[in-house]
């Protein structure tokens, strides 16, 4: 069942002192099912954060619709209306900046419940439940944000988001400010929370190796447009958009034998979203570019069921012979390394 549907979302920001527009989103469409994890990936400037902010109503879209739970969001029906309050939550990138430095994190965590009109004893009971779920001792939760490590603080931010038992949590780069170990802990936490609470996640990230094992479906964005959407295994195994191929080829994996493939290396950088030319936004960097690409945005095509690509040359990228992607290979390898010298009490 569809929980959230984003339809042809457009957001243009005016530039002060000129008539130019920053075209942050140019017609973004996707759907999120109940209880699934949907990831938006792309380089900085691709518009993924803008989508997340529009979904929770922090910015107003220029045009297009956001339909939550069957009914469109509008100025009358927004995240603050009694009907929707607490059903969509947000986790920010910088844990240190999303907590009041003068109150214990537990106070910040129960704050969403006050706006649901919950009484004190229920609030305390709910807090205890959530602390158990995020595996944080009460004593830690009573500390000030400055006394917690960034990883612990992000754990509390996840707790604050799920305390209202939301249907959807929007996570905007929740792991990119953290060390790799803290990052993996947050990912494990998100997976275990989802198993227990059946919350849907809109996971916004540029970190593909995190996304690969967290997400059910993935959407690759570039300069405010969707390039490719599909089930995670399919997109990672057989990406059909030159940009997805290039993006995945740029990810470094921690083993010398897993070299980055030479296929579809993306040269240059993402162009400015000011006054974009018509046609495919990738045309300036794409190795497969044709004159037709510069004329208009390619129409959506479905190389496989549920796998959508905006590229006229997607068939050239088909790779029927591959059985596992680089990420999968790494995980087999890392399992072998981690089994070496595993302490006996668990082995």
């Amino acid at each position: 069942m569809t929980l959230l549907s984003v339809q042809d979302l457009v957001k243009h920001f005016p530039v002060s002192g000129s008539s130019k527009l920053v075209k942050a989103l140019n017609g973004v469409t996707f759907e999120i099912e109940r209880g699934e994890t949907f990831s938006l990936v792309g380089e900085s400037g691709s518009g993924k954060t803008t989508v997340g902010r529009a979904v929770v109503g922090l910015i107003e879209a220029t045009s297009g619709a956001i339909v939550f739970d069957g009914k469109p969001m509008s100025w009358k029906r927004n995240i603050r209306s009694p009907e929707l309050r607490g059903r969509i939550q947000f986790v920010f990138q910088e844990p240190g900046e999303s907590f009041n430095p003068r109150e214990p994190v537990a106070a910040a965590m129960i704050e969403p419940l006050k706006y649901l009109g919950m009484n004190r004893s229920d609030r305390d009971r709910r807090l205890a439940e959530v602390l158990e779920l995020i595996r944080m001792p009460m004593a830690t939760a009573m500390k000030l944000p400055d006394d917690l490590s960034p990883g612990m603080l992000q754990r509390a931010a996840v707790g604050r988001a799920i305390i209202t038992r939301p249907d959807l949590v929007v996570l905007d780069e929740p792991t990119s400010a953290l060390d790799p170990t803290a990052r993996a802990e947050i990912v494990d936490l998100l997976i275990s929370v989802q198993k227990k609470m059946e919350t849907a996640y809109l996971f916004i990230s540029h970190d593909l190796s995190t996304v690969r094992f967290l997400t059910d479906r993935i959407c690759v964005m570039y300069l405010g447009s969707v390039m490719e959407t599909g089930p995670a295994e399919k997109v990672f195994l057989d990406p059909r958009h030159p940009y997805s191929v290039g993006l995945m080829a740029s990810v470094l994996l921690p083993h010398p034998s897993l070299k980055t493939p030479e296929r579809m290396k993306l040269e240059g950088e993402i162009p400015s979203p000011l006054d974009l030319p018509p046609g495919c936004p990738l045309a300036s960097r794409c190795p497969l570019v044709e004159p037709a690409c510069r004329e208009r945005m390619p129409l959506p095509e479905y190389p496989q069921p549920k796998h959508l690509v905006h590229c006229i040359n997607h068939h050239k990228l088909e790779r029927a012979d591959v059985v596992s992607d680089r990420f999968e290979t790494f995980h087999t390898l890392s399992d072998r390394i981690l089994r070496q010298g595993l302490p006996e009490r668990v082995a």
Partner: protein
Amino acid sequence: MTYQDKTDTTEAQAVAAPVLELEGITVAYPRYGESDHVALDAVDLKIRRGEIVGLVGETGAGKTLLTRTVMGAIPGGGEHTSGAMRYNGTPFTDLPDDKSPVRPAKDIALIVSNPRRELNPVLTVGQQIVNVIRHHLGLSEKEARARAVDMLRAVAIPDPESRMDAWPHELSGGMAQRVVIAIALSCDPGLVISDDATSALDVTVQLQVLNLMKEMVAGSETAALIITRDIAITAHYCDRVVILYKGEVVEEAPRDAFFDRPHHPYSINLLAAFAHSPALREAWWDVPPLADGTRPACRFADRCARRQPRCVSEAPALRDCGAGRRVRCHYPVEAGT
């Protein structure tokens, strides 16, 4: 031993000497009414000519403090209490001193993680490169400018002549990082230190910048020290890997050997962050806490899955285990264990 003999040996030593040699570097922060906080504890590091060494650690491991110590700019009241630093065999202590035999930017160049903050916003890109070249190499304005254009071309900046007159705010993050690399390499330094230089960049740009650094280092026999918290970078761009934990080197090994069989439990913990299997990860990470108030002798004991009583009572020494590997652990993961 005659005088002649003595000079011969020192010359031979100078030729074979590593580009940078750190021996027992200790930096401590005094604390009121308590013992000093030792932020770097007897760190040894050798970087040879043409070699790229990766230094990996989490936040607070002392990675940046180590670069700052080498560059002579220890932040916030820290004291370099002991240890020796040598550049091509020449001892140095305090880099900013004009009389120091080793000069920053000329001999040891530093690339930091925020390129925009490092560039002067009120000077054009070209002027900033020219200033560095003229100061260190004593070239004329014209010669320095020609060299600066060559440098911009070498770091793959399109249309370098016109980019010379660009202002830093007109550059994208990746472009600004290239300019900083061009400045760092413009005087043929013997050593380039990259302190998390690519962490703020997008993956596609990060790859371009790392490839560029690797090519430049390979082409000029410069040595490089890549400091990062992302162990994946070291797997592809370094010859040797050094792991730092709470101010101590816990493991050092040639790259391929390290990634095939990391010896120190902390190195395995770092790799586990990238693994998919949550069960294996938990096996390494979920460690029963130490009894309250225990201060283990091994700094990693409280997070170590292979902890034994000896780890709490006796601090492990950094010991040699052959084939260029060193590990600081009583019970390292070795063949057959």
